[in-house]
């Protein structure tokens, strides 16, 4: 166990997997000479060389498509899309190729590809560079979607993703890279598709993931001062979506708040709340609440942007409403 940042944890997972398996390589814009726009792959180019650390042109479709093709030959590419906002350009490759090939050809094609990308707002990057559209990628069967909220999970899940035989979209959060946490040294795997309780509590269940885990934990601390103990379940994977810990917690608290950074409509909260009602209807004591982004493209102005993104107070208010 060492206390490191999310950035270091992700970097470590990549580094260890590349050291361990010569078939693992990374490709993407500025992953090499630059060292990664978020410095995640700093030092990789010098150590692993241009063959395994491949800078690409600004060609999102080709980045994902070529990674898929290489994966079909048995390699384990980790393709990086600088931000999830650019993943829309590669959307066809992600949902029509990556998510379909194994099924459509009757199982004969196997594509162990990981698409690493970065989402989230709060940095005044404006409407096209601040999105959290994680849910729309999780809509497609055939694709696995992971979005860690802690350094340890980031390391363990990324290693699992790299070793997985299935295509995985790995969504990091731009404002979590500095977040520190205890991370197991060396070999450490967190299975994809397993939610987990990040904070025990008895009064209300907060279901969240990625950056909003941090916000929810802060809210929980404040609530605890008032004697309200929130149990926080971190989804970690959006597909497969593991409801077990959520339902278990809910059957205990009978109240839930779902916190996501993205827009509420057709988002993560909608799916999770629907499943809670479907799977634990008799345990519902109050309407489940969704805390999410305001339904607007994110503006540049800092004050307005902050108004639009869920914060600690929003979570606290929602919790009090369901109690």
């Amino acid at each position, binding site marked *: 166990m060492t206390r490191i940042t999310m950035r270091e944890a992700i970097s470590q997972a990549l580094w260890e997997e590349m050291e361990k398996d010569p078939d693992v390589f990374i490709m993407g814009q500025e992953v090499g000479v630059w060292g990664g726009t978020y410095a995640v792959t700093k030092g990789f180019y010098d150590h692993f060389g241009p063959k395994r650390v491949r800078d690409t042109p600004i060609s999102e479709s*080709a980045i994902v498509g070529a990674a898929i093709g290489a994966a079909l030959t048995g390699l384990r590419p980790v393709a990086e899309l600088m931000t999830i906002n650019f993943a829309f350009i590669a959307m066809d490759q992600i949902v029509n190729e990556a998510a379909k090939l194994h099924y*459509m050809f009757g199982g004969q094609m196997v594509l162990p590809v990981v698409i690493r990308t970065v989402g989230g707002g709060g940095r005044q990057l404006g409407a096209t560079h601040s999105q959290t559209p994680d849910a729309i990628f999780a809509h497609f069967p055939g694709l696995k979607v992971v979005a860690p909220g802690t350094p340890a999970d980031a390391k363990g899940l990324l290693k699992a993703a790299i070793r997985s035989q299935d295509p995985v979209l790995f969504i990091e959060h731009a404002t979590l890279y500095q977040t520190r946490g205890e991370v197991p040294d060396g070999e450490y795997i967190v299975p994809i598709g397993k939610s987990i309780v990040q904070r025990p509590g008895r009064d209300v269940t907060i279901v969240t993931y990625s950056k909003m885990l941090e916000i929810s934990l802060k809210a929980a601390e404040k609530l605890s001062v008032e004697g309200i103990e929130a149990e926080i379940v971190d989804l970690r994977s959006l597909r497969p979506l593991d409801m077990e810990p959520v339902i278990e917690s809910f059957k205990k608290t009978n109240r839930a708040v779902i916190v996501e950074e993205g827009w509420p409509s057709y988002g993560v909260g909608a799916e999770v709340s629907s499943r809670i009602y479907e799977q634990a209807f008799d345990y519902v004591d109050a309407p489940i609440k969704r805390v999410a982004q305001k339904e607007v493209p994110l503006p540049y102005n800092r004050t307005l942007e902050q108004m639009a993104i869920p914060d600690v107070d929003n979570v606290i208010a929602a919790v009090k409403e369901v109690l």
Partner: protein
Amino acid sequence: MEKKEYLNLYHQMVLIRRLEEQAAELYQQGKIGGFLHLYIGQEAVSTGLISARKPEDRVITAYRDHGVAINCGLPVNAVMAELLGKSTGVSKGKGGSMHMADVTKNFWGGHAIVGAHLPLAAGLALGDVYREQKAVTICMFGDGATNIGSFHEALNLAKVWNLPVVWACENNQYGMGTTIERASAVSEIRRKADGYGMKNDVVDGMDVMAVREKALNIFEEVRNGSGPQFLEIKTYRFRGHSMGDPERYRKQEEVHAWQENDPIGIFHRYLLEQKIAAEAELQEVVVQAEAEVKAAVEFAESSPEPAPEALYENVYVEG
């Protein structure tokens, strides 16, 4: 080239033709569903190209893939079974006409999204380079596909990374009902390769021997590190874009004129004129091909439907 190889090429072309004529009938009978894009008229293209590949060379194409499948050595039975959606099909009945593949034969599929398989081809080639395997990836696509973004990104990436890909553009004059002139900035497709400083060439796609010759040379160069090359193959689709094409966009005279150029007829004459084979021998090949198709239909029709559980299989490799 030995006689039996010539006969083999002739056999493949006739087999593709008969297979598809049969498929068209089965489609009318409602035994084949979805989209059915016939390759009739273009048989010399894939037959010539793929006859020049080595087993380690990879092939990937679009949805007009029956011919490519046959040329890559996929069993007629399994191809026909796929058309009928049976569990014995090359893709277990899940892919259908547009999604034939057999990775054990290095055929990486029929892909139905125009242009989407071009980046995949770059990746397949990258796999070989990465493993230092001397193999060529043959990526086939149509003239219409050269106008989509992924064409640009794939060719650019292949050149920047010096990947062993042969970009084989089947120029059959139309993308659905749109002529090249109405869809492409340049009417001479091969000129697009200039924008990538990519070596390019053009060949008559109705002449299987000409295609084969070109392919042999280009594959050799690419195999030995020339970097990606572009080959435009001029051909023509005798049937509609897919079944039920009103064909308002072309005159039947134009179609008939091209049919004079039937690639099978041309090769047939060539084999006779060059005294490579006698009419009787060629007839025998035809009879044999027809028998194979007949048997394939029987095989396919008597094959079982996929089990209901199959619906849920192969979504993921792991859970």
